[in-house]
């Protein structure tokens, strides 16, 4: 069986995880290490009148207790914002400071006030209880709807608004709405989620006083970026004096992109006390302090002409970004959301306004999909409502409005240019997979059993492979969008790949090896994959936004191009031929029209033992690095269809079938792609049916453990039917698009549309997320009450 591109090769990384040999941050210990525990605010919003750490400092096992003033005295800055946008009036995004430890004020439950460092975790916890904090409580701002009139959270920030941004042509869009044959209006809420990677965040920092350098082991999706931000912006130390290692990382889903205050405090205190400092979150701390996701309210107006074609779309969004601006908090609801509002539809004019609000809740940032699930949700809910209102089949209404396949490249009304796509085959395939045409028979069969059966469609597009640097920069991004890879060919012909991307479940060791195996014709087993260590790999941007393969994989491909090119020169020398005549295939160099042949291994050896080698014209060695900056985003698209049965007596929704047909371009490893889709769908189902971060009116998080935050479990989910079509990406060497987020983007509206479809005979036309049993039951009760009137 082939081990190259397109083969479902079993994962290389599995064995260590299956045998308990994985090394996650908390599994690592350093001699002399001490443990940090954070004293966190119990209140959502308060001025701190005083902090008394005296008793804590004297408690058993305590090494040090620090508060905000100690950090400030050393001039250590807080996490920075990685993306800003201009306001409608031309002013800039408000970027309030985010101190490592509170300075005079706390802004959410969980805000860190002090750190206690002790010989054991239990001692640190015990001493933390002795830290006395005297608060002057301020009103919490927990409700997004009323945040603008709430108490001032950040000094000088008006109406608790970080930014007020717009995109598109307002005048043209309003004109389209006025002239429309029909305007479909909908208000939807994208519920707030908590990412819940199974490995809680953890950091272990060590200071080397000989070299004046630091080593940080941390749960990061992008160790180089963490190093850059920590060294250059927070600590102002030479970047080369900080090594950041993200070893095995137990899931991220966005939540481990950012630099968090705990990592910085560990680094800082490791020098102060000159001992390694370790911190590992317990789950409740994760709930309180990991960046949350989603939390939008969207008001949508969709204009249709007489023939049910879309002629305009207006979306007004208010989103909750929490107490501090997390690194990509601004990008998520703006450029990762507003630019996706055309979906896969031909919409001549679009306008959107997004207001990013502060509240006294945890910071909100990217969570699997980041902005694109919110865009897809509001659009696909609206498409569903529109189809119902005009009396068209939901699938056919979409088909009517799809961008036709001969219209690519397609310039949307919201900045993006889709390079390629063909949307009908995905829709057709998904309909076939779920036997869409026989649905009504299944609906009536179910109704005989007293169940309401429904089917829901969601067609989505996403922009992946973030991002062309120049585009990102022009739009307010402060980081590059490229990725790096180095290929080191050893003298014996084995290969080590050093990647700037980071795998925390995605299986890069396998897929990246497949690319090498395909290109160099060597067995997969001869390829090692190194990532996650700023001392070992070239500078890289890490993994998020379904970018690893579409950007990092392409960087690898470019590095391999260089290896092949140089190898051909070496082979030409060995075979006494001209480099232009050398061909390379299946690990062998041949000279066209001759029987001359040399193996890849021989070339590698010659590169390092250059006894017979063109040293005058060619350096010895065989190691190449490439940095690849994409020309455009990639645009995976597809259709998911969910089929459900609702039990009217309890409101319980059972998912009876799920069909997904996605176009991810070329696939490197279909098995891994399917696994990504499964996981994404499960998170989307979680959002639609189960998960919700619930703050009470005082800003207390009531869902801070698995007792109350409803994680999808095995028995909540069905098995999924997953298939792919393929229109290769036109602007990268591998023709790949990215698959990590698609499931989470596509699935929530499919499911909610299916529930509405099930209950539509009762007159139900709206359903909020999560559609808990009680929510669904109430919708049925209300509909029945309306019918009885």
């Amino acid at each position, binding site marked *: 069986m082939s081990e190259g591109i397109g083969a479902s090769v079993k994962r290389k990384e599995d064995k260590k995880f299956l045998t308990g040999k994985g090394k996650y941050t908390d599994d690592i210990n350093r001699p002399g290490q001490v443990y940090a525990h954070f004293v966190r605010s119990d209140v959502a919003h308060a001025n701190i009148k005083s902090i008394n750490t005296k008793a804590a400092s004297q408690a058993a096992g305590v090494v040090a207790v620090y508060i905000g003033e100690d950090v400030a005295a050393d001039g250590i800055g807080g996490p920075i914002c990685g993306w800003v946008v201009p306001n409608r009036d031309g002013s800039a995004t408000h970027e309030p400071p985010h101190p490592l430890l509170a300075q005079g004020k706390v802004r959410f439950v969980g805000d860190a006030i002090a750190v206690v460092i002790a010989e054991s975790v239990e001692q640190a916890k015990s001493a933390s209880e002795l830290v006395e904090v005297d608060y002057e409580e301020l009103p919490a701002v927990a409700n997004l709807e009323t945040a603008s009139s709430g108490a001032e959270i950040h000094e000088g920030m008006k109406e608790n608004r970080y930014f007020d941004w717009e995109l598109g042509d307002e005048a043209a869009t309003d004109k389209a709405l006025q002239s429309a044959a029909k305007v479909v209006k909908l208000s939807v809420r994208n519920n707030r989620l908590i990412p819940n990677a199974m490995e809680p965040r953890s950091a272990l920092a060590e200071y080397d006083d000989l070299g004046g350098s630091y080593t940080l082991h941390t749960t990061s999706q992008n160790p180089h970026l963490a190093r850059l931000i920590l060294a250059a912006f927070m600590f102002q130390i030479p970047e080369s004096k900080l090594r950041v290692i993200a070893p095995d990382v137990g899931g991220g889903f966005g939540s481990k992109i950012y630099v968090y205050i705990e990592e910085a405090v560990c680094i800082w205190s490791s020098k102060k006390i000159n001992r390694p400092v370790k911190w590992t979150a317990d789950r*409740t701390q994760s709930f309180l302090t990991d960046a949350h996701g989603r939390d939008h309210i969207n008001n949508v107006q969709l204009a249709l002409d007489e023939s049910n074609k879309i002629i305009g779309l207006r979306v007004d969004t208010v989103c909750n970004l929490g107490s501090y601006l997390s690194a990509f908090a601004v990008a998520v609801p703006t450029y990762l959301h507003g630019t996706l509002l055309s979906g896969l539809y031909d919409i001549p004019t679009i306008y959107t306004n997004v207001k990013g609000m502060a509240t006294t809740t945890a910071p909100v940032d990217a969570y699997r999909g980041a902005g694109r699930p919110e865009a897809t949700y509001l659009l696909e809910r609206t498409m569903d409502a529109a189809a119902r209102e005009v009396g068209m089949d939901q699938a056919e209404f979409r088909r009517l409005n799809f961008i036709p396949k001969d219209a690519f490249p397609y310039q949307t009304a919201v900045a993006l240019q889709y390079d390629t796509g063909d949307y009908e085959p995905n829709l057709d395939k998904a309909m076939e997979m779920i036997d869409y045409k026989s649905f009504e028979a299944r609906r009536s069969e179910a109704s005989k059993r007293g169940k309401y059966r429904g089917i829901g469609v969601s067609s989505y597009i996403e922009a992946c492979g973030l991002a062309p640097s120049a585009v990102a920069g022009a739009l307010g991004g402060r980081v590059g969008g490229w990725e790096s890879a180095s290929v080191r060919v050893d003298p014996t012909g084995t290969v080590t790949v050093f990647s700037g991307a980071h795998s925390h479940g995605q299986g890069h060791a396998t897929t990246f090896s497949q690319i090498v195996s395909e290109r160099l014709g060597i067995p997969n087993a001869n390829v090692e994959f190194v990532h996650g260590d700023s001392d070992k790999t070239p500078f890289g941007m890490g993994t998020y936004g379904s970018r690893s393969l579409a950007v990092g994989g392409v960087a690898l491909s470019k590095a391999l191009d260089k290896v092949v090119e140089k190898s051909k020169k070496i082979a030409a020398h060995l075979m006494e031929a001209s480099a232009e005549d050398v061909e390379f295939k299946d690990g062998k160099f041949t000279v066209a029209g001759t029987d001359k042949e040399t193996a890849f291994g021989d070339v590698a050896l010659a590169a390092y033992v250059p006894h017979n080698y063109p040293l005058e014209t060619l350096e010895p060695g065989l190691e190449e690095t490439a940095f690849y900056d994409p020309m455009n985003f990639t645009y995976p698209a597809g259709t998911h269809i969910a089929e459900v049965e609702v039990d009217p007596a309890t409101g319980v929704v059972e998912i009876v079938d799920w069909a997904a047909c996605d176009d991810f371009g070329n696939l490197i490893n279909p098995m891994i792609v399917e696994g990504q889709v499964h996981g994404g769908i499960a998170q989307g189902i979680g959002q639609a049916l189960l998960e919700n971060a619930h703050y009470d009116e005082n800003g207390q998080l009531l869902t801070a453990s698995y007792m109350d935050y409803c994680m999808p479990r095995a028995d909540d989910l069905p098995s999924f039917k997953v298939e792919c079509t393929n229109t290769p990406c036109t602007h990268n060497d591998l023709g790949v698009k990215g698959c990590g987020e698609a499931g989470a983007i596509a699935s929530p509206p499919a499911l909610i549309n299916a529930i509405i479809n099930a209950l539509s005979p009762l007159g139900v036309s709206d359903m909020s997320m999560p559609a808990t049993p009680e929510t669904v039951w109430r919708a049925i009760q209300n509909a029945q009450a309306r019918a009885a009137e």
Partner: protein
Amino acid sequence: MEIKESYDLPLPIETVWQALNDEGFLKNSIPGCEKLERISPNELSAEVKLKIGPMSTRFKGKVNLSDLNPPNGYTISGSGTGGIAGAASGSAKVFLSKMEDGEGTILSYQVKAEVKGKIAQLGSRLIHSTAKKLAKKFFSNFVQELSK
């Protein structure tokens, strides 16, 4: 959350009012109260041990009497911190009125409660029931004390 209840007491309104202002009565009525000392006319310091199932936490805080309208009622509020468990506060608006027979008193109350920190994070399902239960216990203890 708001909780309302009322009791009929076979005692004159003045007696009830006095008891409501007597720290001895209050101490015996507040569930789990281990210490209650007056620090000013309308302020008392308190230590309360709260047991809910396996959880057992000592809260230290204050009890305040406000909106005094003798003998028709007042607001009694308490707030305390329970260390690692977080903080809890609650207030009860107490209304006294003469029964129609002129002899007895109707005591009614409205309770508001709020919790912070770990108890909110981990015990949300129990907050309402517990607040209701504690309020009920307070007033039933109070009534019992009065009838002694």
